């Protein structure tokens, strides 16, 4: 094997440098784009107290006299949130952050106004869900001395961490969903050595007792949400891969179908139209209307020339009569009903270079894109239905909130977060 000479490598580098320089000629307006970005709503990053505190303290000391003057002037000039006619966002947001090279996800909460970021548990987890009261979270856990996955619950401040026990060897009970009164939890159950035990299980949220099996499958059944009256569960059924850890979910993207089942295990109703598929890998593909009368969801009907062909559908609350309410688009993975009931937010590729999201009324009218500066995925509604929380999928995976008209685009955190593992509770921690 002949070693490349240094001269040869250097010549290749210089040729490549010429190509790079030719391709990187900035257009005449490029610096205006940069300056516009500074003047727009995006550039004010949230404070990162951990890394910025010393510099900020020094700055404050050095500028104390001037800062007081600036502060007074700014206070006099500032309209403030009330004068904008817009209250600051309220509640508490839970999100996951992959902050090591192994791809492990860790769980954090932050107030919706961008303050008070807090790491909740020291061990990797995922798949968080707020209770309906907003006082507790459920999330994935691994019981000590076990390689199985279980579910834990905890208070919103990270206290009272309880791992629900696994008392059946080999059976994982991964995190699922709260019942409307928060008294029960529906789990995704699976046994890698005995797939006949796979299915949805329910148990008391306090201690994991009073367990019932709801469905039976050799695939994976992942609960999405209880109906508002607590009588039914909407769930995703898909191929049996290890879909619990979210990174693996992303790496093992699989298409499945949506079903309804009664909490008493009554026969299944397929919600997604036959021949179509829904994705679970980027969060819930759908959910109930607030009154429980209808279900929204995203479904794929790919063609050889358009593998991402997908649209938004609405079915009756009993899972029947699905009807398409949006035009066909590309890579629509979710369709989520607003808490106020008048909008459904869904995602798709909105320009050649960016994923984004759109709003549509449940009857299919009024569809419009939310103008964003960022490519975005997987929007989550604020509890009051006035804002959306989303992860930017273009460069930095950071989190943002935005008003439904695209205004008040506000950075929540400036560090990478998991795009799909998000939740917004109305309770303020």
């Amino acid at each position: 094997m002949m070693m490349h000479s240094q001269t040869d490598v250097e010549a290749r580098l210089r040729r490549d440098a010429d190509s790079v320089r030719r391709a990187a000629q900035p257009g005449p307006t490029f610096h205006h784009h940069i300056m516009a970005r500074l003047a727009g709503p995006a550039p004010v990053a949230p404070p990162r107290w951990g890394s910025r505190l010393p510099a900020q303290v020094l700055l404050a000391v050095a500028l104390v006299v001037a800062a007081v003057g600036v502060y007074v002037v700014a206070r006099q000039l500032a309209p403030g949130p009330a004068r904008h006619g817009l209250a600051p966002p309220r509640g508490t947001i839970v999100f996951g952050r992959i902050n090591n090279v192994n791809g492990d996800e860790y769980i954090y909460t932050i107030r919706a106004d961008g303050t008070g970021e807090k790491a909740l548990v020291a061990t990797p987890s995922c798949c968080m869900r707020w209770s309906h009261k907003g006082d507790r979270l459920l999330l994935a856990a691994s019981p000590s001395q076990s390689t199985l996955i279980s579910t834990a619950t905890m208070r919103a401040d990270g206290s009272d961490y309880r791992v629900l026990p696994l008392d059946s060897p080999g059976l994982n009970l991964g995190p699922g969903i709260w019942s409307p009164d928060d008294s029960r939890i529906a789990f995704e159950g699976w046994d890698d050595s005995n797939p006949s035990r796979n299915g949805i299980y329910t148990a008391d949220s306090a201690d994991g007792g009073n367990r019932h099996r709801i469905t039976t499958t050799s695939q994976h059944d992942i609960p999405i949400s209880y109906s508002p009256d607590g009588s039914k569960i909407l769930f995703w059924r898909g191929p049996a891969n290890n879909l619990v850890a979210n990174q693996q979910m992303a790496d093992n993207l699989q298409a499945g179908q949506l079903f309804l089942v009664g909490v008493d295990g009554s026969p299944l109703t397929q919600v997604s139209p036959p021949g179509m598929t829904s994705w679970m890998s980027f969060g819930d593909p759908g959910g109930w209307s607030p009154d429980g009368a209808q279900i929204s969801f995203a479904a794929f009907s790919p063609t050889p020339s358009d593998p991402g062909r997908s649209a938004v559908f609405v079915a009756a609350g009993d899972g029947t009569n699905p009807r398409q309410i949006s035009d066909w688009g590309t890579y629509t993975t979710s369709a989520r009903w607003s808490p106020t009931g008048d909008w459904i937010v869904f995602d798709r590729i909105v320009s050649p270079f960016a994923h984004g999201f759109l709003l549509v009324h449940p009857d299919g009218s009024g569809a419009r894109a939310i103008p964003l500066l960022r490519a975005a995925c997987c929007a989550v509604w604020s509890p009051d239905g006035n804002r959306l929380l989303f992860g930017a999928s273009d460069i930095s995976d950071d989190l943002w909130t935005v008003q439904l008209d695209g205004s008040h685009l506000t950075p929540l955190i400036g560090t990478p977060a998991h795009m799909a593992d998000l939740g917004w509770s109305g309770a303020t921690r």
Partner: protein
Amino acid sequence: VRLARTYDALQERTGTVSPTPIRQTWFEPLVVALERSALAFAVMLVRDRSTAEEIVQEAFARVWVSPNTPAEEAEFRRWLYRAITNLAHDHLRRQARFARLGFWLAPKNPLDPIDRWVEDQDLVQTLRRLSRREQLAVYLFYYEDRPFRELDQFLGTRPGTARKLVSRALQKLRTQLTVEAAGEST
């Protein structure tokens, strides 16, 4: 400068007046002076013109909001390149993560000049295997034609260190390119 920036940030947060006139006194000239080299650096790292533009814009935005960013050009460039490096590597990591999904990887703009390159793909892949520091040193030496003395200043290293860094990177490239060539011929 810091006073101006603090005042700017206050004004932006409170939505009062545009801070552009203050910025123009010091920030915009730096943007104009560095946009070309910053864009070339980002293109070298990600090999996609549109993504590189996005990264450079984001890097300038991040440098702007940092209260510690120096206003002196050489130091400013160091901060800017560090931000570009971090953003580019985040992008490449995510690109690898989603590559199998065909998700988020929107089609490239067919008019993008970089698509018309006859790229030295082996070299591109081999460059990506260098450490961030080695990539930066190689870029500054071969793509910006800067002397080792400037590299040492830029990297904050003792005289002679940058030369060793480039030499080590070159040796890695030689070895890896030889292995790649052998793999292709078998």
